[in-house]
C-alpha cells in the first residue's frame, strides 16, 4: 500500500505517492507518474538520492509545519500534509484560518513593547508588538483586521522563533 502526501511548493500542490520496493529503493508517484529512486542516508540530516542517473544531495530540517531542503542549488521550503488528513480536515482548517490569525515571532528576540490590549479592534498591518533582536527593533504587524483575542507575551520577555505572540479574530 503506497503512502500518499500532498506537498506544497510555493502556490502549487503536488500529489505524491511513496512505496518501498526494496531496501534503499522507493517508488515515487508524482502527479500520477512513477519514478524509482535509490535513497541513502549519508548523515544525520543528509540524503543522497539517485533518480534516472541524476544525483541529488541534500540536507533536510523541519521548521514548524514545513521541511527546509538545502542543496547545492539553494534552500527550498516544502509544506507537507498527509493526503487523508488533508481531505478530512482541510476545509475546516481553512475556515478556521479565515476567522482567526496568529502572529508569530519571525526570529528569536526580546519583546520591547506590546502596542495593543485584548479586545482592541485592529486594522490589517497595524503594529501589534515590537521585538528586538541584536541591535534592531522590529514592529510586527497584524496579519488581518479584527479584534485582539489573546496576547501571549509581555515586554521584557524572550521569545523563540515561531512562538505565538498575539491572536487576532
Amino acid at each position, binding site marked *: 500500500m503506497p503512502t500518499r502526501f500532498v506537498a506544497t511548493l510555493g502556490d502549487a500542490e503536488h500529489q505524491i505517492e511513496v512505496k518501498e520496493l526494496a531496501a534503499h529503493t*522507493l517508488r515515487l508517484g508524482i502527479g500520477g507518474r512513477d519514478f524509482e529512486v535509490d535513497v541513502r542516508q549519508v548523515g544525520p540530516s543528509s540524503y543522497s538520492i539517485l533518480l534516472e542517473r541524476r544525483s541529488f544531495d*541534500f540536507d533536510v530540517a523541519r521548521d514548524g509545519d514545513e521541511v527546509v531542503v538545502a542543496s547545492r542549488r539553494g*534552500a527550498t*521550503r516544502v509544506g507537507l500534509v498527509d493526503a487523508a488528513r488533508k481531505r478530512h480536515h482541510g476545509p475546516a482548517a481553512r475556515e478556521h484560518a479565515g476567522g482567526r490569525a496568529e502572529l508569530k515571532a519571525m526570529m528569536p528576540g526580546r519583546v520591547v513593547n506590546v502596542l495593543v490590549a485584548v479586545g482592541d479592534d485592529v486594522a490589517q498591518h497595524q503594529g501589534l508588538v515590537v521585538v528586538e*533582536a541584536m541591535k534592531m527593533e522590529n514592529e510586527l504587524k497584524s496579519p488581518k483586521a479584527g479584534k485582539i483575542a489573546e496576547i501571549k507575551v509581555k515586554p521584557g520577555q524572550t521569545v523563540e522563533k515561531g512562538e505565538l505572540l498575539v491572536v487576532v479574530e
Partner: protein
Amino acid sequence: MFKRILIANRGEIAVRVIRACRDLGIESVAVYSEADRAALHVREADFAVAVGPPPARESYLNIERILDAARATGADAIHPGYGFFSENAGFARAVAAAGITFIGPPPEAIEKMGDKVEARKLMSAAGVPVTPGSPDTLETEDEVRAVAKKVGFPIMLKAAAGGGGKGMRMIENDADLASAVRTVASEAKSSFGDGRFYVEKYLNRPRHIEVQVFADQHGETVHLFERECSIQRRHQKVVEESPSPFITPAMRREMGEVAVRAARAVGYVGAGTIEFLADADRNFYFLEMNTRIQVEHPVTEMVTGIDLVKAQIEVAAGMPLPFKQKDLAQRGWALECRIYAEDPAAGFVPAPGKIETMRLPDGPGVRVDAGVYEGAEVSLFYDPMIAKLVAWGRDRNEAIGRMRRALGEFVVTGALTTNLDFHRWIVEHPRFIAGDFDTNFINQEYRPEAAGQGGDDAHLAALLAAAVMAYRNGHNGAAAAQPTAAAPAAGGVVSPWKILGRLDMLRR
C-alpha cells in the same frame, strides 16, 4: 616577539587571530562571556578566561575584566580584532598603562580619525580630496540648508561621532530636510552621546572603494591596493572584492599614494584602511579611516599573499614591515561573501539559532574563516556572522565561478536561517558579473519574492526530499495541523507541470 597574546574579541576574528598566533608559535588567550563558554574561539585558544555576563558591555567591553584576564594569564600583548575595543583610544591607553602592548595604532591616531569632522579637516590639509560639504560641524537646520544650497541636493547628513554606516541619512530635497535633521541629531545624541553633525554632497552612483595601508614603527608606510565594497545593504558591506572592477591603473596608483599620505598625516602605525567614495566619473573622495583590521581583510591577503594579522603582530613587536612597496603586487582576483544567520526574505532580520549540520566548502581557491562549528549556537547577543567565504581566481571570472561552486558546497541546517541563497543570487546577477554596480545595487535590484529559491532543480530536489522524509517518518512526518495557508514559502508560483516536464527530460 610576544610570548602570549590575549584576543579581546570573539567569533571568526578571534579564531583568525588565534591562527596567526599559532602560525607564529605564539600562545593565545581567549576571553569569553557566559554565553560563549562553548564558542569556537574558546576551544581553539591555548588559554581561556571568563570575563562576564552575555551583554557585551558587561564582558567584551569591560576594560578591567579584560586587563585582569591578561594579567592572570601573563599575556604580553592584546589584539582587539574589529568592533568592540578596536577603535577605542581609552582602551589602547589602559592597555599600555598596564605594561601590555596594544596591537594597533597609537591612541592619538585613533582619536584623530575617530572624530569624522576633524578627520575631514586634517585630510583636506594633507592634500587628500574630501567630498564637498560643510567644512565644520553644524547645529541647526538653516546651517544644513545653506550648505545644501552651495553643494546641491542630494546631500548626506552624518553624525560627527558616527562611522561604520551608523547615524546618517540621505536628503533628496528641501522638503525632507527638516525631519532628517531632527532624526540624525536625536540618533547621534542617543547613540554616540554627541549631537553634532555635518553635511557631505551625495555622489552620483557612488562606489565604495577602500585602500589597505600598513605602517611600521620605523617610518615605513605602504599600501596594499584597493578593495571594492560597493555591494552594501543599509551601509553594511555584504560582498567585497580586490581588485576593484571599476578603477583604472592610474586611479589605483593615485588612490594608493593618497592613502599613504593620509596615514602619514596621523602618524599611523599598523594595519588601517582609508575608505573612499568614487563617483561615476571616477573622482574619489576621502570617506573615513578605519584604524583597525577589517572584516574584509582576507581578499587583500589572497591577492597580495601577505598575512595581514601576522604583520600586525610583527609590527606591534617593533619589527620592521616584512615587505616594501616594491615587493607588493596584486595577483588574481578575490571575492568575499559574508555569511550571516539572517533572513533576507524578512528584511534581513537576524535569525540565529543552533547549527545542526555544517559542511564548509573547500578545494582550489576557497578559504573559509568561520566563527562557529557544527553543533554550536549562533548567539542572540552578538553579530550573527557564521563565516566569511573567500574565493580566489586568476581573474574575476574564475573567482566568481569558484565562489558560486563554494556557495553550493556550503551547508548549514538547524533552527536558523542563512543568507546563503541571497549570496547565490548576487553572484548570478548579470550586473554583478559585469562589475556594473554601485552602493545602491541591492536596494535597486533585490526583491526577495523575485529572487526565487534555486529554480527547477532545487524544486525537484525539494519534492524528492519531501517524499522521502514523509515516507521515512510515516504519518508523523506530515504536518499534524492544518495546511499552512500563510506560508509564502518558495517565492513565486511553481507549476507542477513544469517540474514533471523536468522529470521527463531526465528520462531521455
